[in-house]
């Protein structure tokens, strides 16, 4: 078990902190009692300034070691779990199920898009039926159909479709429709 830290308490006792990252166990031992008693030193009772400073440092060390040790244990456990999952090949099944969920979400999103596109086409036609069928109304119908149809052009189509749709709803093509009238 490696010695990781040591410190001196108020009484001048030296403590050693042991920590084993493999087992995750820790131990603190009182390895040496050092009442500093020298002829030139006035700290006969064992209280000395170094002891106080060391004790504070020891406390801080303990807290930091506990934190790091805890982190190391957590990390080790995570690594162990990952290794176990990899060994069991469960990670592959988890990945494939995630991919399946993603694919299903994309499929559902696309189906929603198709549904909205179909409704959009029908709404355009309905608007045309209710209109007086002038040139402007035909242009409006054509505009709506073109916006829907561009969604079929690969890569750039969907962005063009959304962009044109937004512009149309903002009234950007109204002048064009009036011109067709």
């Amino acid at each position: 078990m490696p010695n990781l830290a040591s410190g001196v308490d108020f009484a001048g006792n030296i403590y050693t902190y042991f920590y084993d990252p493999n087992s995750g166990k820790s131990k603190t031992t009182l390895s040496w009692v050092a009442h500093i008693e020298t002829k030139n030193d006035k700290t006969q009772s064992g209280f000395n300034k170094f002891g106080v400073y060391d004790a504070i440092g020891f406390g801080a060390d303990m807290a930091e070691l506990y934190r790091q040790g805890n982190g190391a244990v957590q990390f080790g456990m995570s690594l162990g779990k990952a290794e176990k999952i990899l060994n069991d090949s469960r990670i592959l099944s988890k990945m494939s199920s995630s991919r399946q969920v993603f694919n299903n979400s994309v499929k559902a999103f696309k189906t929603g898009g198709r549904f909205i596109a179909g409704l959009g086409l029908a709404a355009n036609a309905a608007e045309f039926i209710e209109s007086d069928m002038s040139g402007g109304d035909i242009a409006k119908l054509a505009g709506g159909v073109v916006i829907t149809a561009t969604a079929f052009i690969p890569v750039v189509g969907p962005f063009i479709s959304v962009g044109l749709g937004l512009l149309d709803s903002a009234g950007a093509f109204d002048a064009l429709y009036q011109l067709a009238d």
Partner: protein
Amino acid sequence: MALVFSLIGLFVQIIFLMKRDRLFSKQKFNLILMVSLLLFVIAYLLIFNYIGNVKYVKMLTVPFMSVLIFSVIRFIFFRIYKRNAEDTFWSMEINQITDGVFNFIFLIVGTIMPIIIAYKFLP
């Protein structure tokens, strides 16, 4: 009411959007052709007998023309590429550009032309 007739009138386009494989299957295509022909006949029976609103009823003639346009465009595509066009709705594959152009052309020509013919040229 206009929306209901529009949905019926554009059922070929809706099938093209949602279940396009049915348009490429011979049996199902024949069924769609029969239904659209039936709708066309019903529309003109209603119009000549002055039943219903002509504005709405004329929409029932659209599917038959759409199916005809689809079969012409599909025939041209098949003659050139020796295969049927794939679905390219919201596709991000650049190698499907020819299929995308087919779909784009059908949706524009197959929707706008029948509606204009129905409302501007047919009696």
